[in-house]
């Protein structure tokens, strides 16, 4: 049971590459914190720094009130679940889980008790004598978690533990990890690039990009009020539609003379695909309306995504090229059910004022409406 606090943590690799550029956040005792971001954003590096597998260039990492910068991984009272599980291939499942405890000189009966308890929780009792290669991916995943649980550490660290599983198993394990964490009430830090995993697991979500934190908060708050265009396009699938605005464009696009308070020239307007409605009615007051030519349709079953090029494409300048963002001029509309317009058809999609997001021209800050 412990808080994890990061104070101005930096990592510079020899050669001068800044992987982590000063990160501050705190995970309270028992919370499930998810670090999410595109590959190369430094989230795994940060996790490995907490684990003690990477050195800390500057700043402090504090686990349970103790600065651990100079402490060996084994003595930090943490347990880690690796992406490829990193099970010892020559040891039985039982020994895989018991190894760390033995190295600590724990008494045999206590080791046995803990391993059997963990095996019970994870439902791997019948596999205790098998070798890792005789297990399926999901079972290996459980053993890797078992190895973490038996340690009864202050903090669990997960490094993309589900990315080697198939989609169905991933969802099942995701739910299980969450249940397990609730039950054990152990502070956890979980790294993933999957925004769905991030949204569903996190008590506290840390969105990272290029070695910095873009936004920290409750997942739903982040979804509802993304702080930057990067977060807006990274959290939520399909990504938020972002279109740059200038004053004249703004007037022509926003119906009925509605005005957005404090929208400076060159601001970026964001609308989530799920907030747009295909309609023939006039754009609601203060809202936004796009005249679109349908270019592609994706039917997922419960919903349909309509990709449209909007008529003002020629006027719109390129938005900063963040990963996951839409190409300029393309707007995605999410329609419930399977009914969708035909390709080539001209439609109008509108969203009311309270569904709009507005960002400064550089995309680095949010302008509250």
């Amino acid at each position: 049971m412990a808080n994890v606090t990061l104070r101005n943590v930096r990592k510079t690799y020899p050669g001068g590459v800044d992987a982590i550029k000063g990160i501050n956040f705190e995970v309270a005792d028992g919370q499930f914190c998810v670090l999410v971001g595109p590959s190369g954003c430094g989230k795994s590096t940060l996790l490995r720094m907490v684990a003690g597998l990477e050195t800390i260039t500057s700043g402090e990492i504090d686990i349970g009130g103790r600065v651990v910068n100079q402490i060996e991984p084994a003595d930090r009272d943490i347990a880690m679940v690796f992406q490829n599980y990193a099970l010892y291939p020559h040891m039985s499942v039982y020994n895989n889980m018991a190894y760390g405890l033995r190295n600590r000189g724990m008494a045999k009966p206590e080791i046995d008790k803990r391993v059997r308890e963990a095996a019970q929780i994870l439902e791997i009792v019948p596999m205790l004598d098998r070798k890792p290669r005789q297990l399926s991916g999901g079972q290996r995943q459980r053993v890797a978690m078992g190895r973490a649980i038996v340690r009864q550490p202050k903090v669990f660290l997960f490094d993309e533990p589900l990315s080697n599983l198939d989609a169905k198993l991933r969802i099942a394990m995701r739910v299980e990890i969450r249940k397990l964490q609730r039950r054990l009430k152990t502070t956890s830090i979980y790294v993933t690039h999957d925004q769905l995993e991030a949204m569903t697991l996190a008590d506290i979500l840390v969105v990272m990009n290029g070695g910095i934190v873009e936004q920290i908060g409750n997942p739903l708050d982040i979804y509802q009020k993304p702080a930057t265009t990067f977060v807006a396009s990274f959290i939520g699938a399909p990504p938020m539609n972002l279109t740059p605005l200038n004053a004249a464009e703004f007037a022509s696009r926003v119906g009925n003379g509605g005005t957005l308070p404090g929208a400076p020239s060159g601001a970026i307007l964001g609308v989530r695909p799920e907030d747009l409605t295909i309609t023939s009615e006039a754009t609601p007051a203060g809202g936004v309306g796009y005249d679109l030519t349908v270019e592609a349709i994706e039917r997922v079953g419960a919903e349909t995504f309509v990709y449209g090029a909007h008529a003002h494409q020629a006027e719109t300048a390129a938005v900063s090229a963040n990963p996951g963002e839409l190409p300029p001029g393309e707007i995605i509309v999410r329609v419930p059910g399977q009914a969708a317009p035909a390709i080539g058809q001209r439609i109008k999609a509108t969203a009311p004022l309270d569904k709009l997001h507005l960002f400064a021209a550089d995309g680095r800050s949010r302008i509250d409406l």
Partner: protein
Amino acid sequence: MVENEGIRRYVAHAILWIGIAVVAFPVYLAFVASTQDNALIANGQMSLLPGGHFLETYYRTIFVGTSGTTREPVGMMLFNSFIMAMSIALGKIAISILSAYAIVFFRFPFRMTVFWIIFITLMLPVEVRIYPTYKIAADLSLLDSYSGLALPLIASATATLLFRQFFMTVPDELLEASRIDGAGPFRFFKDTLLPLSRTNMAALFVILFIYGWNQYLWPLLITTRDDMQTIQVGIRKMIVTSDALTEWPIVMATAILAMLPPVFVVIVMQKLFVRGLVETEK
């Protein structure tokens, strides 16, 4: 086409059988000679079927030795050769697995220099460095001793490179998991790396044992006493070039005996070796 395939297969098999015969015939001939009477062989009247002196010849070879030249029984030579080959094989594995461990898993200054120095020694087999090596062995009073037979041949670049290649395929996460599990460098080596290298060690052991067993030049130089000589040197000494009669049955029996340990090692270790090739997962 189909009957063509059949003919082709028979031809292929025939060629293979001829190959086997060419390789096996001298061995068979040696065996036959070892069971015949010496006078018969000397007269050039040796038959191609085994004679009746099998037990007698092999008893004399192993426990008594030839009547002239080297008087050592071959039993002793076999023992010497076995000790030498074993020490070389085990010593090489021990030294090279440790040096490969250091090169792959530790960051120290001039790590790559050390690696290249080891690599370069590939170009310096015993034959090339025979004089300095002999001088050092003599100065350390290693002449006519088992350490003298084995020690100078123990350093091995080949084995080091092999272990290095294998260690580099061990996932980093395994090392990291060990660190988190509280295993220091020694425990990681003992509990994880050694068990994983088992099959590699078996394969190397086969190669290195045979290498050690077949050594001729070095034991010839380093040993002068008859009771220290190895079987490879012993065979040569048994063949008399002066006026006496070479005791061919004993020479041939010695040759057959000299072949057996390597064959035995190959047969025993093959299982482990093949299992190592099948179990690819790390």
